[in-house]
């Protein structure tokens, strides 16, 4: 009895620690970022189209950076969501057991490849390929970055979605086949709706990785702070800006606060993203 108490207390402490650390991070990012608002109004930052942090006078418009992050994440979603869910369905429902036992661990191995390796691949191989394929003058652009982020997000989406689809009880499928539904009808009308909440979680996890990815976009996105007019324009996502400029920003300067402000914007994005996903997921469960 006593041991139980000690154990639950210990677990409780760990849980509290995780929460404290999280709030600590949020607090420090916002408290370093918000002082920027003393010098520049929020509206001017969010809608400003010029990012010249080190010039005199400096301008801190982050609209091009926000557009860049959203664009590359969107492109990566178009690429990775169908591919990821498609592979998940194949692995869970179509592939024979021996193939699944080989492919699933390989898929999980792909998640563990460091992003700088993807970046190097994108810089030296993929960018040249995209230049030739689409006859564009520049290989380092939003499209290349989006494709690369899509490749990185696909294994995450596929792996988590596969778990969800695979864990749909066999009895439900048997019942469906039993009343005369085809394999496709069973998949489309029974299995996928039952695994919906898990699939949505998979997409959120995958796209969170895409929007937060830094090293790859530094190497591949081009880095120009412009509002993209075409998917083949070079862009400068939020994460790349923080990582590339933090080294130069003097502690406590306006530039320094601006970079933390970008961090806060990025965090807000991810939270909104997660809350939306959670809402969809809850609704999916409720509908069942």
């Amino acid at each position, binding site marked *: 009895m006593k*041991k139980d108490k000690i154990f639950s207390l210990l677990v409780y402490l760990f849980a509290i620690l995780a929460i404290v650390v999280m709030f600590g991070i949020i607090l420090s990012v916002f408290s370093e970022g918000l002082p920027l608002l003393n010098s520049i109004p929020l509206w001017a930052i969010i809608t400003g189209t*010029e*990012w*010249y*942090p*080190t*010039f*005199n006078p400096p301008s801190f418009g982050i609209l*091009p950076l926000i557009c860049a992050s959203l664009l590359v994440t969107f492109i990566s979603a178009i690429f990775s969501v169908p591919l990821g869910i498609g592979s998940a369905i194949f692995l869970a429902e179509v592939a024979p057991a021996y193939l699944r036992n080989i492919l699933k661990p390989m898929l999980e191995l792909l998640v563990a490849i460091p992003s700088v390796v993807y970046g190097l691949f994108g*810089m*030296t191989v993929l*960018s*040249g390929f995209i*230049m030739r394929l689409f006859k564009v*003058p*520049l*290989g*380092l652009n939003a499209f290349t970055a989006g494709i690369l982020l899509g490749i990185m997000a696909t294994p995450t989406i596929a792996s988590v979605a596969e778990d969800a689809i695979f864990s749909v009880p066999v009895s439900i499928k048997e019942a469906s086949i039993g009343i005369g539904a085809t394999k496709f009808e069973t998949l489309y009308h029974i299995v996928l709706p039952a695994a919906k909440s898990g699939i949505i979680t998979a997409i959120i996890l995958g796209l969170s990785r895409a929007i937060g990815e830094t090293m790859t976009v*530094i*190497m591949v996105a*081009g*880095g*120009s*702070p*412009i509002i993209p007019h075409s998917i083949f324009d*070079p862009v*400068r996502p939020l994460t790349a800006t923080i990582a*590339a*400029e*933090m*080294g*130069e920003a*003097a*502690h406590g300067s306006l530039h320094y606060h601006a970079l933390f402000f970008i961090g806060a914007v990025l965090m807000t994005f991810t939270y909104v993203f997660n809350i939306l996903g959670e809402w969809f997921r809850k609704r999916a469960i409720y509908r069942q």
Partner: protein
Amino acid sequence: MLKKCITGISGMLLTTLLFVNGIYGAQKTQNSKKEIIIAGSTTILPIAQLCAEAFMKKHPDVVISVRGGGSGVGIKALIEKTVDIADASREIKESEIKLALEKGVNPYKTTIAKDGIAVIVHPENPILNITIDTLRDIFTGKIILWEKLTKDFKGRIIPVSRDVASGTYEVFEKYVLKGARPAARALMASSNKQVAITVAQTKTSIGYVGLGYLNNSIKSIRINGIEPSVENIKSGKYPLSRSLYMYTNGKPEGVIKEFIDFILSEEGQKLVKKAGFIPIK
């Protein structure tokens, strides 16, 4: 139940002991080795790496770790006391000196090599010479087509610049941009290597790198008619030349002094040359 519990706890204790012992042991072996940590300019990176390797071969008891990051990053790390040597391809700024003194760090400069910033284009580009003013117009976005500069080459000019944390960028800004803002369309690369790769891949691009990064896949062009050659940079005739520095906290001492002396020695300066830069003597 009790027995299980005791075995469990003793097992846990044992692993903890082993683990702690492992860490302690590792620390002990590390303590007997002297460590130098270097960070900063990606321009100096090849010199620092070559010299570190040669130095470690001669002194097996010394471990040197070399990182890039950019001159600004290196100097910042020196001020935060997380590195022993900061590589910088520009001089330390007033604001940085002030911050360093506040933190009790006294930056000491040693010039280790000279370098020129070469302006590079794709090998298929026929252009051979460019003036500083034209270069400024290209990077500020006033000239956007190659047709304006030469009749043999067409296309939209893609300027490739370095990020603001780069010393190479600061030198370029000082001598070429002269305070003007670069076009937002210009690419921002995070290292010299990235500029070189991008220009080698992109036919209509133009960029700038430290001399050490020149290779056959890119073409360097003359500025105001002057070639970025060793003589022209040594004599200061080439407009985009500069010195490369290593900053330490106070006058270098002990093993750090030994390492810097090694770079300044005849053998070290040979490595500077091998890395593609210009010896100071």
